[in-house]
């Protein structure tokens, strides 16, 4: 399994190919349906965002409630295609990578190639496994959204698959 460290520069990105099995270390922000809606409300009103987009990675995830004695409770990916309407704008703002599950629209795929970004698929439902590879979890924004709040997570070798690479190749049929 190839070990990779986020964030990725242009050279790193070019070395990733659809179907590669990798383990990712580094920081990511969680954001799913409701957090994306909030981010875009801010963007549309020219307000500052609570997280940097350029150079960051977003993990489409909403964990179970915190459990005593654990950094984070079960935290697997959610379906990426629900964020199809949001993803191209974020890639155009310099978003480095996304982690989710399942295929995405051709618009999103084009935004990935246009910006030299990458889309990783985590294994849907592997929430306990992924949580066991998270060493730091901190709430950053939209606390009132509960599971859907934005958290910053530090990954330690989370197993992923390169789903769409910067050349536009996809692991999905």
């Amino acid at each position, binding site marked *: 399994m190839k070990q990779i460290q986020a964030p990725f520069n242009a050279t790193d990105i070019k070395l990733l190919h659809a179907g590669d099995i990798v383990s990712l270390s580094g920081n990511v922000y969680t954001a799913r349906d409701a957090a994306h809606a909030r981010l875009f409300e801010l963007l549309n009103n020219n307000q500052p965002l609570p997280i940097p987009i350029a150079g960051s990675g977003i993990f489409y995830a*909403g964990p*179970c409630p915190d459990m005593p004695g654990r950094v984070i409770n079960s935290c697997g990916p959610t*379906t990426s295609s629900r964020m199809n309407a949001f993803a191209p704008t974020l890639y155009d703002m310099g978003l480095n990578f996304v982690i989710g599950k399942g295929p995405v629209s051709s618009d999103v795929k084009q935004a990935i190639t246009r910006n030299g970004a990458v889309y990783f698929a985590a294994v849907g439902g592997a929430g306990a496994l992924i949580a066991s590879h998270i060493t730091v979890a901190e709430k950053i924004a939209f606390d009132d959204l509960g599971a859907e709040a934005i958290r910053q997570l530090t990954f330690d070798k989370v197993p992923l698959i390169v789903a769409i690479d910067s050349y536009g190749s996809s692991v999905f049929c």
Partner: protein
Amino acid sequence: MRTIDSKLMTQTVRDLFLSAAKMPGSDALRAIESAHETETCAPSKQALAQLIDNARISGETGMPYCQDTGMAVVFIDVGQDVHIDGDITAAVNEGVRGAYKQGYFRMSVLDPLTRQNTLDNTPAVIHFNIVPGDKIDITVAPKGFGSENMSRIAMLKPSDGITGIQNFVIDCVKTAGGSPCPPVVLGVGIGGTFEKCALLAKKQLLRDIGSTNEDDALAKLEQSLKIDINALGIGAMGFGGSNYCLAVHIAKYSTHIAGLPVAVNFQCHAARHAHATI
């Protein structure tokens, strides 16, 4: 007439969800292991291996197998000779509330329009059925929405026949692709009315994975659909390979001369349910 205290309903529902929402059934875990053994496509085999690890880690840590601990679906068969002391619906919801809090399960239920979370995973979706006898049968099925979102119903024409049914199921799978967290179980309902058909499909998800249908014609249809679906090559998580579908479970019900309803309910590999009789 036997009297059952609604508090016993609450306790039973709570205990059932505490076990069911944490981990898929042993039938699902066995099916995932056997899919892993036969899979030859590398990314897909890796995904299935992660699911086996995930079950082990969930068991060791107490963290739920999947963070989507679902919307609480409850099937209750009430014996007609039972009197329930108290509000049965409130009792069930109290059990759901208790389990999701105690189990550190995700509160995923909200108002569909305002998106305001109820913060306790209620209300449950409860299906009551009146049956002979003096017992209450309760089956709980926490249902994740990655798979639920891919579910569909079609009001086919009688002339579409079995081929039309097969084509619709295959089309549902092609449209869903890797999104519903395959390997999946497909619950298929054929016949009835619009709502009956959907309920037939949902109830098929409660069957033990791979159990043989008592109806020979449906058993054959289940087998042929499973083969055709896996031959599409979508594979676990959509990563390719031959293990998209662990089982197809089909039920039918009489329908109208003008109709042929078909419903397909997707169930991800976290196929969770638990059952008790009181």
